[in-house]
């Protein structure tokens, strides 16, 4: 009997093996629901990756699924009728993403392969000569774009191998009385898709980044030839779309992600945004502002944060308010030293070196926000940035770029400017620095907004409700809109004290 208290969490390359954004989110979710039993299925590389998180006791089982480890399943490929059935399914599978004109159904073919995978025969079948010949035959059909790129035998071998590794999670079974919760799109959804189709297990899909977009960007510097790239990205695109269509519910962490989800064929009614949350106790009200007008920024010193734009904007602010300082908090990641040097050079060219400081890593992150009048964000790409909601939780207003879910996070409690436009960023910062009354008012509204909408507790409660809903429980818990009056209660609530809330990794 399914009751929403048994969840299979499916991850790829994140929890519980590495630290960082999505892993922190998973940890918060699992520790926030001690009454729910979790089975964690983590897709890894070789299967020899260590577990770096302390698993709480409500994770009753952890199954690592190495996609690049020793080959799973039986050694012998199916033969006779079984082989012919496999070849038929596999060719329909290939046609579904190589030839859109063929109108083969990706899902149907995938579920045929899933049955074979559960029988332990898919890997062996994919490594046969006949599987390779099927691919050679299909992708050299003259009307297909892959044929124009002249695929070689080596390309076919590489593509088949990559697919064989990618499909390994398909044979993993998950308990039938659980709710399957994939915390990313793509390969992590394979066991959930199979379980949903074959065993009727409800399937919840959460997306933080856009999986497909990351796959596209990841192939920019690819080592493979064009046919292999087209093959793998075609597979990922169809898998992604099929996941969106098959999921019982999709919970992106911001509204912005909907664009890709609806583009991928997701039904708008099945998308429910659940925002990330921050713990107002870990990010308390920051208190009085510093003496000198100060802008702060917090994050990893990384090109994706577009700190050049921030420095240029700062230069323009200095022209108007010469005593203004800019403090950059956060570590330089390994390999990012060159970027920092570039920034220092730019600061020297702009003549602002005296007011700029690189503060490095800070253990109490809230102090970074407390150190300034206004918190800045100049990124060119973000999901639902923690540095913004953490700053807001500290009662500081923000100037940020209009990327990802930033506008949803900030609302009308800060100023949002287009990315890569330093003039507009400078103008916004000057407006706030000069208007004390407005700035303080926005700071108050920011904290209020976090407590009303983006608390960790609210985020966890939303998922608790969703699990029960998907499990078919009649009683649905509706989280009420918390008011400012009861946020003090939240501060005394014990459970989240154990949760690691270190925003710098996001």
């Amino acid at each position, binding site marked *: 009997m399914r009751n929403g208290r048994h969840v299979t969490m499916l991850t790829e390359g994140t929890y519980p093996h590495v630290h960082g954004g999505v892993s922190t989110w998973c940890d918060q979710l699992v520790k926030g629901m001690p009454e729910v039993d979790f089975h964690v299925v983590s897709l890894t590389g070789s299967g020899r990756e260590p577990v770096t998180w302390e698993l709480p006791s409500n994770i009753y089982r952890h199954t*690592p699924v190495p996609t690049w480890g020793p080959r799973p399943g039986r050694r012998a490929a199916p033969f006779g009728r079984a082989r012919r059935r496999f070849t038929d399914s596999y060719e329909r599978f290939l046609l579904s993403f190589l030839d859109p004109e063929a109108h083969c159904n990706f899902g149907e073919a995938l579920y045929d392969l899933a049955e074979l995978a559960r029988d332990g025969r898919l890997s062996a079948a994919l490594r046969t000569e006949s599987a390779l010949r099927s691919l050679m035959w299909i992708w050299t059909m003259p009307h297909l774009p892959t044929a124009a790129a002249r695929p070689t035998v080596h390309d076919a071998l590489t593509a088949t191998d990559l697919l064989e590794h990618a499909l390994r999670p398909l044979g993993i079974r998950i308990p039938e009385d659980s709710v399957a919760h994939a915390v990313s799109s793509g390969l992590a959804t394979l066991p959930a898709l199979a379980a949903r189709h074959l065993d009727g297990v409800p399937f919840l899909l959460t997306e933080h980044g856009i999986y497909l977009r990351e796959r596209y960007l990841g192939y920019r510097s690819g*080592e493979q030839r*064009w046919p292999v790239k087209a093959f793998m990205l075609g597979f990922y695109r169809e898998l992604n779309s099929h996941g969106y269509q098959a999921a019982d519910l999709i919970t992106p962490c911001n509204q912005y992600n909907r664009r890709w989800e609806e583009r991928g064929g997701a039904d708008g009614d099945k998308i429910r945004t659940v925002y990330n949350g921050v713990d107002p106790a870990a990010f308390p009200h920051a208190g009085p502002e510093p003496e000198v007008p100060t802008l702060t920024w917090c994050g990893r010193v990384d090109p994706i944060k577009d700190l050049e734009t921030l420095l240029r904007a700062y230069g323009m602010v200095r022209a108007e308010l010469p005593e203004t300082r800019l403090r950059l908090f956060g570590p330089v990641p390994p390999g990012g030293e060159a970027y920092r040097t570039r920034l220092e050079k730019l600061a020297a060219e702009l003549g602002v070196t005296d007011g700029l400081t690189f503060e490095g890593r800070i253990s109490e992150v809230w102090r970074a926000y407390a150190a300034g009048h206004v918190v800045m964000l100049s990124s060119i790409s973000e999901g639902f940035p923690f540095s913004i909601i953490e700053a807001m939780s500290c009662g500081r207003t923000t100037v940020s770029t209009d990327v990802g879910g930033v506008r949803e996070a900030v609302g009308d409690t800060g100023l949002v400017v287009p*990315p890569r436009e330093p003039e507009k960023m400078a103008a916004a910062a000057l407006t706030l620095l000069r208007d004390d009354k407005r700035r303080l008012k926005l700071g108050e509204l920011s904290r209020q907004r976090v407590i009303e909408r983006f608390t960790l507790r609210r985020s966890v409660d939303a998922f608790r409700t969703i699990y029960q809903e998907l499990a078919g429980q009649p009683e649905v818990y509706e989280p009420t809109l918390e008011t400012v009056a009861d946020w003090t209660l939240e501060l005394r609530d014990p459970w989240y004290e154990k949760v690691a809330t270190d925003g710098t990794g996001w």
Partner: protein
Amino acid sequence: MPPGAREDTLPAVPRQRTPSWAQPDPVDELAERLGDFIAAAVHPDEIAALLESDGMSDDQIRRRYGVKNSFALAEVLYERVGRRYPEPAGPVHDPWQVGLLGCLLRGVVFALPGFGYVLGAPLLAGPKEDFGLPAGTLPLLAGALVGWMWNQGLAHRAYSWLGLGDRLAARRCLLLGAPTGALLGALVALAVAGTAHPAAIAFAAGQSVYLGAATALLVLGRERALLAALLPMAAGAVVAMLHSVPDAARLTLLLGSLTAVAVLGLLEVTPAIRALKGRGAVLNVRLPPRGRDKPQRSRRRRTTMGPRITASLPYALFGLATGVLVLYAALGDILAGEQRSAIAAPAAVALTLSMGPAEWLLYRFRSGSLTGLRSSSTPRAFWRTTAFTLVKCLTGYLIALLALSLVTSALWPQAPGIGGIRLAGLLLLGMLLWTGLLLQSFGAVVGAAAVCCAAALAQTLALVAHMSGPHLVALAVYGIAAATQAALVCALLGRVTAHR
């Protein structure tokens, strides 16, 4: 297309007509700026991904380009730029490029220990044994065969660990495996000899230690160190062949080289000793979990996935079978009752030395078949290229073996010329060994092990049954086995999937 325009002056893509005073079309500008990327894109969404990662918001897209969002802009760009299929940047990766000198060196390293027997022969002097073998030969042979078999399996297991990227585990495997193999070899020698030949047993024990240590050094890529440790002993043996050398000097040379090899091998695997100690210490002082935030140790799963032990068994059997075959090639005449022991010894030396070129040609074949994979667009074309490469490499090996056997028998003291039947047998045996190694390098070790074991068994039976014409029997056995294995090679390596 405007009437009267020549076809080649206008590109096929329809363009927005702009008066000369107007700004150029911003979409065209963008298409030109991102031209290479757009041309290589597999889908419009790939371009949308790039635009978004570059920080272009839908607001900016509407304002600058007048289309709804990044997807719409990406579709316009995808249409406007023709597809191109650029080859990946940088040189083609070929993991099979290997230096000839390194391989030849390995061949020499395989052959050098043979001098040990030259040096040690007077120490083993005694009455002749069964089958007319010199004194102490049987325990030595038994120990060598066991060591050979064990170390082939051990080397495969260690290479498997290295293949998984776990150098420490490979060292640990050698640290435990090599001494076990040495002990096993010594015990087998003891069992065969009884207490009759203490000198032979001691020599066999030393030989077992050498085999284990040399395996560790070779697997970890330290053949130069091994060569350096063997050189004094080999030089001493050459001197001993020309002049008489006292037994004490012989013993010193043998023990010195053996100690050097053993110490070098031990030094190579010592990091594993330290790791073993460290891990144990940590495990011993770990406190029981406190509170519910700590995982219970009993529930923690081992995430380590190592190679299976049984996977190394066929390699061990293949090692045993080839060992037996080479021994028969070396001692066949004596075992057959002909007392001209020197005739066959050069053949064995040539076979051992030829392992250097053999290895190099195996790499050449793999490199050539990889090039074939990359240049063929149908499985049939690939089969043709591979068959041609195979014939080239096998011919190369047989020529090298022929040359080596002619040179060794010419240089060998008191050896008559090598006859036609013997030469044919040697070449067939070489073909059997090389195709066996080829199959093994493609993971088809079971087939190779089965064929070689059958050949070794047939040879043994023929010998035990005292069949007439041992050379003809050997020729037939080698011929049938080599033909079987060649057929296996053709059937297997013609398949593209064998070359992953």
